[in-house]
């Protein structure tokens, strides 16, 4: 890696080399991750229903998603006539960029992430909020009633899940006394999921809603809205939405792992820095697996049910949790 960096630095300068290599590595890994996660999703869904899932392309169907991706690449990019062209074309890009940025913020081990931010958690929250704008742009510009409904539901949904997510993350911030993701990981001698189980549960429910996963896949809702916001998208543009969804799953899973499961920490991670990313990815994929498991277990909520659930239950519980956390902290720190 460092030899490659030296070679690139000769042409691009030190900063440029880090930028290009870092971005290239992240994009490569995220591409692999999407291919893997779609395969995993199909396997989980299959085995939850006592089927085998993809088995034909490659060992246990491992190359099935590669074949699917090639097929999507070769498809014609149809742009319907009455769309708002710029918005329509820009939405799939806009939904993808923040997730990649998010991926670079997660601490990978020791003191390194691809991008260092003293207020990392705040940036994470802001970046993950952009997804909704992109979804609404896609839905609105498609000039299709199902797409508009999907986009509107997405906005309605963000009002429901964003606040509990923030409140539960805030409980972690209260304990760690910082917004720096590195410091939050460093502070977890015991994973915060033990200290803050309620916040962890609310955060998990929140990121499930944030990635538009069942039981909160209200903006997509195949059985009600055709494809929801991406009804009018074809070929690789549609694939970008898929890309973004699965990337988001991994990245938010990694953020969840960072906040509640101790991030890159694990036995021997201090001594061997290369173990850090391994632990982080293991924890992130465990969260992702739980999300998939939940998807193939629970039926979709109506969005008034999600609203009731979020406003009447999650927000009060998160608030009480926050107050209790603060009270306990004050009691502990008082002389």
């Amino acid at each position, binding site marked *: 890696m460092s030899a490659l960096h030296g070679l690139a630095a000769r042409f691009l300068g030190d900063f440029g080399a880090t930028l290009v290599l870092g971005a290239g590595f992240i994009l490569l890994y995220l591409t692999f991750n999407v291919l893997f996660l779609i395969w995993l999703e199909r396997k989980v869904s299959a085995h939850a229903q*006592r089927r085998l899932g993809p088995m034909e392309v490659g060992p246990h169907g491992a190359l099935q998603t590669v074949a699917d991706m090639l097929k999507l690449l070769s498809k014609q990019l149809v742009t319907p006539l009455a769309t708002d062209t710029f918005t329509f074309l820009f939405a799939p890009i806009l939904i993808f960029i923040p997730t990649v940025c998010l991926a670079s913020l997660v601490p990978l081990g020791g003191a390194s992430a691809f991008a260092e931010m003293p207020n990392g958690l705040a940036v994470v929250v802001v970046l993950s909020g952009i997804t909704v704008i992109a979804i609404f742009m896609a839905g609105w510009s498609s000039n299709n009633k199902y797409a508009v409904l999907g986009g509107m539901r997405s906005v309605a949904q963000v009002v429901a899940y964003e606040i509990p997510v923030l409140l539960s993350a805030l409980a972690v911030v209260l304990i760690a006394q910082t917004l720096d993701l590195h410091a939050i990981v460093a502070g977890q001698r015991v994973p915060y999921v033990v200290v803050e189980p309620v916040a962890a549960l609310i955060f998990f429910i929140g990121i499930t809603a944030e990635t538009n996963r069942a039981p909160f896949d209200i903006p997509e809702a195949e059985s009600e809205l055709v494809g929801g916001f991406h009804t009018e998208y074809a070929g690789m543009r549609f694939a970008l939405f898929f890309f973004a969804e699965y990337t988001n799953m991994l990245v938010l899973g990694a953020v969840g792992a960072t906040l509640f499961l101790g991030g890159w920490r694990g036995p021997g991670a201090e001594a061997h820095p290369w173990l850090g990313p391994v632990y982080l990815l293991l924890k992130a994929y465990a969260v992702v697996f739980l999300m998939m*498991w939940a998807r193939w277990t629970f039926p979709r909520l109506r969005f008034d049910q999600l609203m009731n659930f979020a406003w009447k239950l999650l927000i009060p519980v998160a608030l009480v949790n926050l107050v209790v956390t603060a009270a306990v902290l004050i009691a502990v720190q008082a002389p």
Partner: protein
Amino acid sequence: MITPRSVLSGLKSLVVGLGVTGRHMVRPVVTLQYPHQRPDATHWGGPIELVTFPETGTHDCIACNACARICPSDCFDIAGVRPPGLKKMRATRFLLDFSTCSLCGLCIDVCPTDTLKYSERYDDVAYRRDLTVNDLLAPFGDDPFLAGTQP
């Protein structure tokens, strides 16, 4: 109305649900990878075929047309000759139009020599109607009993 009790019972139901799918995830799959694996068709009643008797190594169809007479769908086209030196007739043509067969099994019941049975085939396909006609004598090749007779 959200009460602590309803929240707890809701949470319990979620865990129970996850438990159900989780249990199924670790149980063996129930599907077959069809072209590679075949189901057990021992008791399957497919298109009828002629029985091979071990004593003679061939079928025992005497072209009596009992099956053709009882068939409610008129599937059969049967012809036979009496070979010289034999008391019984011998089938020379036995065609079953499977496109009209309803697999009722009356032919099997009525066959005086018990030479009809259900086959274990379940995946017959045809793209043209005339391909649905099965020649039940085809698997037997040249009939030794008919050697020397004119067809």
